[in-house]
């Protein structure tokens, strides 16, 4: 196997670990703000690593550019959605969790 294939696999696995962490956070964290915090990290960094890994496969520059564009769009969308959910939660009077 070529070196680039190993790097690609390593990046994708690293990205997946962020998704696993994000999912764990969603299930385990105590309130909506904490869960959002965990989820956006997974989306942003996890997908970024997966896109980086996939770009190293023998795709063309054009497909790599499209993948990166998808990631940038997701950054924008997930940031906005995270903000909107947190804002609505705050507006609805959901208090942030404090360590008991």
């Amino acid at each position, binding site marked *: 196997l070529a070196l680039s294939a190993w790097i690609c696999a390593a990046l994708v696995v690293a990205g997946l670990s962020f998704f696993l962490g994000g999912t764990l956070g969603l299930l385990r964290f105590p309130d909506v703000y904490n869960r959002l915090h965990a989820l956006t990290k997974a989306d942003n960094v996890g997908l970024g690593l997966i896109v980086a890994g996939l770009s190293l496969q023998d795709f063309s520059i054009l497909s790599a550019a499209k993948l990166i564009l998808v990631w940038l*769009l997701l950054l*924008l*969308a997930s*940031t*906005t959605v995270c*903000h*909107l959910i947190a*804002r*609505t939660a705050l*507006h609805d009077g959901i208090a942030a969790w404090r360590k008991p």
Partner: protein
Amino acid sequence: MEEALSWLQTTFDVVLALTLIGFAAILLATKDLLDAIVLFILFGLLMSVTWGRLGAIDIALAEAAIGAGITGAMFLNARGDLEGLSRSHAPDSRRLSRLAFALGVFVLLCIVVGAVAAAPLEAVGMRDLSLSALPVSGVTNPVTAVLLNYRAYDTLLELTVLLVAVVGTWSQRVPRTTFETTPVGPVLLGATRLLVPLSVLIGGYLLWRGSHVPGGAFQAGAVLAGAGVLLLLIEHPMPRRWGTWPLRLGLASGVLFFTLVGLSATLGDDPFLFHRDEGAARRIVAIEIVATVAIAVALVALFSGRSPHSFQEEAP
């Protein structure tokens, strides 16, 4: 290595199929509306992955954009409208009819599974016939050739269904809904400012792609509709300004133009809705462009639910 890869793919497919069925079961069993909507969106996304695994990229794109995206947004919107209303629970006396219904579905399922199991593994289909006619169809993407040439009446009727759905929604006289309980903030405004032009670009790209690779009017229309929904959410004046006759024109344009171009084929010796050789490519692209706009307008109109009358009544 090859063996391990194919084993991995099979495992993935089996897990995917089981998850789909599981989601469908939970979705049907859940009592909470919001849970059901979220599950529906997730189901649509998984369905999209499934179509991708089956190699049907066109359907995967359409499922993600329309099935999960726009329909999910409509459900969420409808739920917001329902929130004030009191819920009436179905009486238990209907349990027997439910049981009969479930039994009927089960029998039907058995028949379908039996028929699939009995069918020969080698599909006879119309694949070769459709591929052999591709050079004269005006496009190089076989899916587009089927949708806009061989079976164009299918697509024309789909557009008609969308149109009828909008008319049906208008006849319900949906009251004016405000989409946000909280005022529109700068982040949503900024994101919309970036996303709307990008949606137009991506919609145009999907439309242009459709003639030779997966993509086309429905996918492009759904992406454009996403931009329209965003404009509604930030209460941009554009949907209001265009809410009267441009809305009607945009809605009707798809069916009208499709029918007119279809009729133009009969001026030659071809049957209705049939395109061949030179001119076919041009006509198909023209239909796709108009259909994209009509689909986008119809989806946004379904999301908003407001009829042109309500805009006129509001105007001084």
